[in-house]
């Protein structure tokens, strides 16, 4: 593959590269000779003009793969970083996605690819939404406009997508573990490549990171861990009032690595001595100073040293020279063992609207690059998350024992609103789901009413705690499972397919799912009222349907184990669980045109099942279809099991269960994903038709 060096006459370099680095312009002109988008270097740094147009990126245009970066000079690399920034802002402004995490690691990405030889060397990005610059530099620049869309690039690293993506990461804190595994494999197979794991300070709040570091220290295999510290120890990176204060003692430790209290105390003491004695003791004071500095910078990093990693840092994560120097030196060492390089970056660096925004523009929809304003579409209804937050606040106002717990997802779970109202009753434990669950169990054991709001896919991490600490002991912890079912652009890593299965198989758990936002509010009230056993309810990503809300957003507890019939029909009954009931209603509506009038029921509860309702449906209909947006083993399985145990399958009923298929559904728009999964209203109606013996109509169903 020939390397195309841009020799366009429009490329203007106004200053010789050797001495003055003051004014260095990179521009490309159109036909008129006027530079369009300028990326220029000034004494204080690179300035990029973010206009709405595609930025001119002459150097980035020559880089398709990391190998094209090998011969770039230091100045070239800086220019490349600036161009990469401009490209990312432009690209994400058109597609939406994660912005500021990528901006913070531009220099790191450039340095890593320049120094190391991917794909032989492995770079593992923890929580890959920072991997946009990595994707651009590894042959996917031309497809960046498809990111997070159906059949486009994934928003996270994906092994299937490219050989440069060493490990898929969507849940955080896994990169060191994976990196260690790759390092050990390399050693056993006699290979010589390097393994680099990048992890953030937020991800460090998870236990798995320590498990991995502990093991790395013990095994002593060569491994480079880059700790990307941008002081954003909570996600999304803000409360309603502004940047979140770092959670927990860990971030303090990291801050201390930069400032060191002990050092300061020593200084204060030295000051005191100096004052009293004056004169030549100043020399002594200075020596103490030096000593202290040397001592403290070694022991200040004792957190990592204790675990067996050699600590280097802190390093300015936006200084390419520094990064390249360090990486080159470490790379050239024969036996460094596990090394931790602590770099300090700023999230959203280089794009002023992101730097200034309270949540640093972590996740954005399409926006205007000149000012960072997002094009948020207006919707008549709010997101389920918001209804959840409002309703929980109302419950908490009535009952002072209600508390809320989340794992670093204040914005995503809506609990930022709760936190604002009840700052002492909202607990953010950092990215630590296991701890969150047992923490809630402890609270419940002593009489509080904890609501654990954790995404369906993230609760997977704390599953043993749910079983052993909560369910086995029958403690009344309430789980609010947001992002249940398919989640759209985030893809399979965030897909909440399994929660019905893993919750409903637990003996003491009450499992319910609302079909609309009013039901959600009632279920929150129900959960608050269930005080003798654990309970959970799931709701999807997306907005409500527009039903009337209960007065003042305060729900009333439902009767446990009782569903409801939405539409009365005959011959065919569709029993839906959760928000998919709305899809069932749509299917029922479209079947009227074919002269078919189906019964639609909302099960509400998967555990305990509404036995009466199900028996009635079986006795009064010929066909029973259960529908849920969950994997096999969930609601449909429970209904089938119930029917078989009660001898109801021995008769005349035709039973079909519609569930998510037994494979991972790729990222895409929600509609595309539902189509792919076979759970759209069209599919439901077609199923009915084919069961009624009208297969031709089923096939032709629009």
């Amino acid at each position: 593959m020939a390397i195309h060096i841009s020799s366009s006459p429009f490329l203007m370099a106004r200053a010789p590269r050797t001495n003055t680095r003051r004014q260095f312009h990179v521009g490309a002109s159109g036909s008129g000779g006027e530079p369009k988008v300028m990326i220029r270097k000034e004494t204080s740094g690179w300035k990029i003009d973010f206009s709405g147009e595609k930025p001119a990126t002459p150097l980035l245009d020559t880089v398709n793969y990391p190998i094209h970066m090998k011969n770039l000079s230091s100045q070239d690399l800086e220019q490349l970083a600036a161009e990469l920034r401009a490209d990312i802002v432009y690209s994400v402004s058109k597609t939406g996605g994660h912005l500021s995490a990528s901006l913070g690691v531009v220099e790191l990405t450039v340095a890593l690819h320049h120094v190391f030889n991917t794909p032989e060397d492995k770079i593992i990005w923890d929580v890959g939404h920072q991997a946009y610059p990595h994707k651009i530099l590894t042959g996917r620049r031309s497809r960046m406009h498809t990111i997070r869309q159906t059949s486009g690039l994934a928003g996270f690293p994906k092994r299937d997508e490219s050989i440069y993506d060493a490990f898929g990461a969507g849940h955080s804190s896994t990169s060191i573990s994976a990196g260690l595994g790759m390092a050990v494999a390399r050693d056993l197979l006699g290979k010589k490549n390097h393994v680099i794991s990048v992890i953030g300070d937020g991800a460090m709040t998870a236990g798995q990171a320590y498990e991995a570091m502990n093991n790395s220290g013990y095994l002593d295999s060569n491994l480079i861990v880059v700790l990307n510290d941008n002081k954003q120890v909570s996600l999304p990176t803000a409360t309603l009032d502004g940047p979140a204060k770092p959670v927990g003692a860990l971030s303090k430790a990291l801050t201390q690595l930069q400032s060191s209290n002990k050092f300061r105390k020593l200084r204060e003491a030295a000051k005191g001595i100096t004052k009293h004695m004056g004169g030549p003791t100043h020399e002594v004071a200075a020596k103490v100073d030096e000593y202290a500095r040397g001592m403290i910078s070694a022991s200040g990093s004792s957190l990592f040293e204790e675990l067996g990693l050699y600590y280097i840092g802190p390093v300015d994560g936006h200084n390419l020279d520094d990064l390249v120097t360090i990486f080159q030196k470490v790379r050239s060492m024969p036996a460094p063992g596990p090394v931790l390089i602590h770099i300090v970056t700023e999230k959203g660096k280089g794009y002023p609207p992101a730097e200034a925004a309270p949540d640093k523009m972590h996740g954005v929809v399409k926006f205007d690059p000149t000012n960072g304003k997002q094009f948020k579409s207006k919707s008549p209804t709010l997101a389920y998350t918001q209804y959840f937050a409002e309703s929980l606040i109302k419950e908490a106002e009535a009952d002072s024992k209600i508390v809320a717990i989340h794992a670093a997802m204040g914005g995503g779970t809506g609990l930022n609103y709760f936190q604002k109202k009840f700052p002492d009753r909202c607990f953010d434990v950092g990215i630590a789901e296991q701890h969150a669950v047992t923490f809630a169990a402890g609270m419940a054991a002593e009489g509080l009413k904890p609501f654990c709001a954790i995404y369906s896919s993230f609760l997977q991490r704390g599953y043993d705690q749910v079983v052993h600490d909560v369910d086995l002991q029958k403690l009344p912890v309430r789980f609010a499972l947001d992002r249940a079912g398919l989640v759209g652009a985030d893809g399979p890593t965030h897909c909440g397919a399994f929660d019905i299965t893993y919750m409903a198989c637990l003996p003491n758990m009450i499992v319910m799912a609302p079909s609309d936002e009013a039901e959600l509010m009632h279920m929150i009230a129900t959960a608050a009222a269930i005080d003798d056993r654990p309970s959970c309810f799931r709701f999807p990503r997306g907005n409500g349907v527009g039903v009337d809300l209960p007065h003042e957003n305060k729900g009333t507890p439902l009767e446990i184990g009782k569903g409801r019939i939405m539409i009365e029909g005959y011959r065919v009954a569709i029993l839906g669980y959760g928000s998919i009931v709305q899809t069932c209603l749509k299917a029922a509506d479209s079947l009227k045109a074919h002269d078919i009038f189906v019964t639609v029921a909302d099960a509400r509860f998967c555990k305990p099942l509404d036995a009466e309702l199900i028996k009635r449906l079986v006795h009064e209909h010929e066909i029973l279809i259960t529908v849920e947006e969950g994997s096999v083993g969930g609601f449909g399985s429970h209904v089938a099991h119930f029917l078989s145990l009660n001898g109801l399958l021995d008769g005349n009923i035709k039973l079909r269960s519609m569930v998510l298929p037994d494979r991972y559904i790729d990222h895409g728009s929600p509609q595309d994903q539902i189509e792919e999964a076979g759970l759209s209203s069209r599919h439901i109606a077609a199923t009915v038709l084919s069961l009624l013996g009208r297969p031709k109509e089923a096939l032709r169903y629009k």
Partner: protein
Amino acid sequence: MSAVLPGSNIGGALHPCPELSTTRIGGGDRPSRLLPWRRRQPRLPKLISSAFKTKAAVGEGGLLEEKKGSFYELLGISEEGSLEEIKKAYKKMARKYHPDVSPPDRAEEHTRRFIEVQEAYETLSDPSRRALYDRRLARGLHFAFSTRTGFDEELEERSLWKNRWNDQVAELKRRSMSKDSEENLSWGARMRRKRAESSIE
């Protein structure tokens, strides 16, 4: 009064810090190479409005004693103070020291205090500025704090970091030379030795 500041080296060995050629100390008479804590004369630059303790010392005259003053002490809160505490303390002090409500004979002193309280609040209520301030406080530089020198301070801090990690990398290199000697029984060392042996053959 001579403000004797920590780490100062009057006539002693050079403090291991890179030189900075800024004129943030006082007026622009000559490019001063002295770092702020190495000042010998108590020049009170106009920039340093937050050094309330030195002003207080000079104003009241007499006592040579420096009052150690950080923004936290000024506001009367602990260094771990939350935003709420900072706001409350600020409001309380602002009400007390506002020039409009101060008795005429204490007006000047109160106004000075008010300005100091104002700056303290502005710094501590902004998380990033507060973080910067905390770092400098830890290194004993808080009394020279001023937002206008923020950029230079950052530069200086970064260069301190550079020295430190250069040392660390050198130490690692040294260690790694002897890391795989026979005494090291770790799994990684054993694998590296095996690989080294097999590549020699």
